[in-house]
């Protein structure tokens, strides 16, 4: 069962909303319908499912209907037609009291301008959802304090929101949403009002929180960089419709139309793309047991001056350069030894953003090795590939598509790369 399921949702503002939906379903354009019925069609025919633990981003410019769409998910704006299912439960069929229960237990929300209660302390703000649910005072305080701890505001419980900086205020907003233990988190432009530095700090904090909490997050933003940094999948909205829905790589590689293409041009690829998205099949590679002569043959064949050396289970054990191999052959060695050890090979994790691949790549003679936690060699990133991708060249996927790696799911970017970013 999906965490959130949205089926054929339309939201039209105005007295003749139902008539407007009928016209839209009959294929009339948004402008025609707006003109004819004097309504505002804000969301048109939205359908998608969000899996548990996913960060689903809705991206669009102001007026594209993204904020309305997110409010359809908790029925703050009840859809004009269609259905919204949370945990398989159809919200449209609930009584107002049942709906309030769902809001207090299953869905919580973080707001663009924080929406904090200025007359309540930070702790009382964080405890709001629990207070609504009539949780006893002592437990309420404890759980709210716990949520404040999660977002790094442990010492601020008795302050008032007005005494905090913007970034800290939004942490209170986040703590308020986390305190109820709701599975689904709606974040409406949650970081848009923050300074750029604070903003990327918050994005990173959200990603690392998400690794522990595994909430289902619906994140609204107008910034494609933010969308691609955070999102497992991204829905791009324009004039009420979802024009493209896909992973970061899918959208970068094949923008659905000119509207999306225009956005994609401005994306900071170094931050939204991960090593796994651009890495290539390691071809300059040799098994350790094969020996120096085989290594030399391999290098001549590939016309390269370095090889990744792996064991039978494809785990990285080191690297061999042409000097090493030639020296070994001269000294009559029949085994690959005195290699560059695995620790000395420049390597990154599959989820490392490209921005963090630049320095290791620049400092290494060999292509960058992409390894998982067991040091299994997943792929390599030659410097030329990195430069090509960061240069905005869209053709990177054409011939050396990292097929099996991107299939496993996209751009769950983390900054917590494997600690082996060791530079040789």
């Amino acid at each position: 069962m999906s965490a959130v399921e949205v089926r054929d949702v339309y939201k039209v503002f105005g007295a003749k909303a139902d008539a407007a939906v009928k016209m839209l379903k009959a294929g009339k354009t948004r402008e025609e319908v707006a003109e004819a019925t004097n309504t505002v069609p804000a969301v048109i025919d939205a359908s998608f499912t969000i899996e548990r633990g996913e960060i689903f981003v809705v991206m669009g410019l102001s007026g594209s209907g993204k904020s309305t769409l997110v409010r359809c998910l908790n029925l703050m704006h009840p859809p004009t037609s269609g259905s919204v299912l949370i945990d398989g439960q159809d919200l449209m069929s609930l009584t107002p009291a049942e709906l309030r229960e769902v809001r207090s237990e299953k869905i919580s929300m973080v707001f663009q301008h924080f929406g904090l209660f200025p007359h309540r302390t930070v702790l009382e703000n964080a405890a709001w959802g629990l207070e609504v649910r009539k949780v006893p005072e002592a437990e309420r305080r404890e759980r709210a304090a716990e949520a404040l701890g999660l977002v790094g505001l442990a010492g601020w419980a008795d302050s008032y929101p007005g005494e905090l900086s913007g970034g800290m205020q939004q942490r209170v907003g986040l703590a308020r949403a986390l305190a109820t233990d709701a599975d689904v988190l709606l974040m409406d432009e949650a970081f848009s009002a923050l300074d750029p530095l604070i903003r990327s700090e918050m994005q990173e904090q959200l990603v690392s929180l998400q690794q522990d909490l595994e909430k289902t997050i619906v994140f609204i933003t107008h910034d494609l960089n933010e969308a691609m940094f955070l999102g497992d999948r991204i829905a791009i909205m324009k004039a009420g419709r979802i024009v493209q829905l896909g992973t970061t790589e899918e959208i970068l590689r094949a923008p659905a139309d000119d509207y999306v293409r225009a956005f994609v041009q401005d994306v900071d690829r170094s931050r939204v793309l991960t090593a796994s998205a651009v890495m290539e099949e390691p071809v300059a590679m040799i098994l350790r047991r094969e020996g120096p002569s085989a290594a030399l043959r391999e290098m001549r064949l590939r016309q390269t001056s370095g090889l990744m050396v792996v064991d039978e289970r494809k785990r990285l054990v080191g690297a061999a350069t042409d000097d090493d191999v030639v020296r070994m052959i001269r000294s009559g060695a029949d085994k690959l030894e005195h290699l560059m050890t695995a620790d000395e090979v420049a390597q990154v994790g599959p989820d490392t953003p490209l921005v963090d691949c630049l320095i290791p790549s620049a400092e290494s003679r060999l292509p960058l090795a992409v390894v998982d936690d067991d040091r299994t060699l997943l792929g390599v990133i030659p410097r030329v590939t990195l430069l090509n991708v960061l240069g905005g060249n869209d053709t990177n996927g054409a011939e050396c598509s990292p097929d099996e790696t991107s299939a496993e799911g996209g751009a769950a970017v983390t900054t917590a790369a494997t600690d082996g970013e060791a530079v040789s």
Partner: protein
Amino acid sequence: MVLNAYRLPVGTWVDSAVDWMTDNLEWLFDAVSAFLKALIDGLESGLLWPSALVVVAIVAVLAYIAKGWRFSLLTAASFAVIAMMGLWDEAMSTLSLVLVASSVALLVGIPLGIIAARSDRFSSMLRPVLDLMQTMPSLVYLIPAIVFFGIGKVPGVVATVVFALPPAARLTELGLRQVDPEVVEAGEAFGATPMKILTRVQVPLALPTIMAGVNQVIMLALSMVVIAGMVGAGGLGAVIFRGVTRLDVGLGFEGGLGVVIMAVFLDRITAAFGDRANKRVSH
């Protein structure tokens, strides 16, 4: 002139409406009258029962709580001046009229403001009524009040309520509408009931504005109570009215000074509580 050809009998219409009301709603007016009279008399005798010194001490303490020592001393001295002018009974009578009229105006006006803040339609219906109530010369209210309730304190209070009520409704509505919609949404998004959002979020945040309304209501009530002195409501209004009819400048001034002292006291006290509400909200 074409518009002269027909005399529009607005006055006649109002007369017949008033006639109908006196004939058919007498029971209602009697009940309201009895209730208000009991309230006013009760409060007045409560204020007059202890020695004036005790009451002066009480207002001084209130003033101290609201604004501190200096205001407390000023209040005690000025209330003593009222007593020494021989106008104590009249002042207490006026105070009880003001308090009863203001309370009724707030009890009716604040809920009206709350409904108006939640319903645009109700708001647009209420607004012209409030405009009428505020701009109609206040003396005019005395006429039907006398017709319905006779002479005395009750018509004075009723006319005062009508005159003083609009700011309570208006400023309550304004205050509630000024609450950041995102904050209200935040209340809603976590499943709070409309009542909980109203009492725990909207009213606390609107309190400074609502308190400004309370302050205005009391000030308007005080000004109207003086006029109500003309219809036998007694108190300082009667003193002033006597001064006017006898061309007794001294008497008029004494009564007027009493009103000013009360006004300063009530204004500063309510404004201080408004400031306090403001401080709580604007951390």
